[in-house]
């Protein structure tokens, strides 16, 4: 039905002609932009401090998420017991990135999987503000399981689930599984240190979620809760 497509185009045209459609910065927005500039400068200092003092936990007081008036990534709803995400699938091992590689570039870590397929499983829910769940990663030399302890929504269709390895060579260290709800879904796996769940997610957000290495999920499916 070509008519429907034309009507959608016409809707766009009519909105375009509607005056005024000019974005005028409000004092509130201008203040946020000005503060944003200051925060951006602070973020550079925070990054440097974190690298010098060995981890983001020591520099958290200067991070964007703590200081900026800009909303941090949305946290899932805090009421009721609800599934946040669950599913399983296979993904290329290059979806794995660790803190060292993230901040210093490739080649600084030699214990990450270089290639092959990883089998990933996750199940997470929240109850009264408590995020819990479990997950596992197997394949490409990895045989790890972890406990989920925190989560946050990231840029619309993605969710980041943070946790701690409780079995395998990385026991006690942090892990984040970032799932993008796409066609097909994509995954990025972050191997952190021992900064704690929320601090790890703050650390990733400091450099932008988009800079993670996402890989499409093969032969699997991850279901995210979308109704916040």
């Amino acid at each position, binding site marked *: 039905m070509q008519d429907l*497509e034309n009507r959608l185009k016409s809707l766009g045209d009519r909105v375009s002609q509607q005056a005024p459609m000019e974005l005028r910065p*409000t004092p509130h927005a201008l203040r946020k932009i000005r503060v944003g500039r200051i925060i951006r400068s602070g973020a550079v200092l925070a990054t440097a401090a974190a690298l010098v003092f060995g981890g983001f936990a020591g520099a958290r007081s200067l991070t964007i998420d703590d200081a900026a008036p800009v909303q941090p990534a949305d946290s899932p709803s805090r009421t009721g017991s609800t599934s946040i995400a669950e599913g399983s699938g296979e993904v290329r091992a290059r979806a794995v990135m660790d803190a060292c590689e993230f901040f210093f570039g490739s080649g600084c870590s030699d214990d990450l999987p270089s290639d092959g397929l990883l089998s990933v499983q996750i199940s997470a829910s929240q109850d009264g503000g408590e995020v819990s769940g479990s997950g596992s990663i197997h394949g490409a030399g990895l045989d790890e399981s972890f406990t989920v302890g925190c989560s946050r929504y990231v840029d619309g269709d993605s969710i980041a689930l943070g946790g701690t390895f409780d079995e395998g060579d990385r026991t006690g260290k942090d892990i984040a599984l970032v799932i993008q709800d796409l066609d097909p879904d994509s995954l990025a796996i972050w191997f952190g240190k021992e900064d704690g769940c929320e601090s790890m997610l703050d650390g990733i957000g400091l450099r932008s979620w988009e800079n993670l290495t996402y890989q499409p999920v093969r032969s699997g499916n991850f279901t995210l809760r*979308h109704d916040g």
Partner: protein
Amino acid sequence: MLGRRAGSLRSTRFEDLYAAHGAEALRVAYLMTGDKALAEDVAQEAFVRLLKGFHNVRNPDAFRAYLLRTVTNLTNSHFRKSKRERDFSRREPKLRSEDPIDLGSRDMLWGALLRLPARQRTALVLHYCHDLSEQQTADVMQISLKAVKSLVGRGLAKLRSDEGVTV
């Protein structure tokens, strides 16, 4: 070539980008929400967020796609976060009395468009209402061309099944 690009970006003032793309961001946000005040909030928030990563923008040509992606993500995130989407979808686009146009029968279409799942709505708004090509839509949504075709097809089918649209 790369150096020249980086240089040209450094000379691009954020205020210039705001002036050049502000209206477009507002238009897309308005189409996505049907609410002008909310659209202004979303468009401005998108620029504020882009400012945080402005120093990381290496390709000025990609700024538009990045901006539109941020606008659509913020819109969808807003509805999801505040649970307003469910309430919102029960009513038609609410135009203010001072709006100078009467959308007439298109009110029904706009209402149906706003009731679509977020990604179908995003694909239809960008492709048809905002006149982006399918590839440009894919770039903005960061999905494959095939996924865009699928979302557009499913969105159109859902609109056709909406009683109000077929009137």
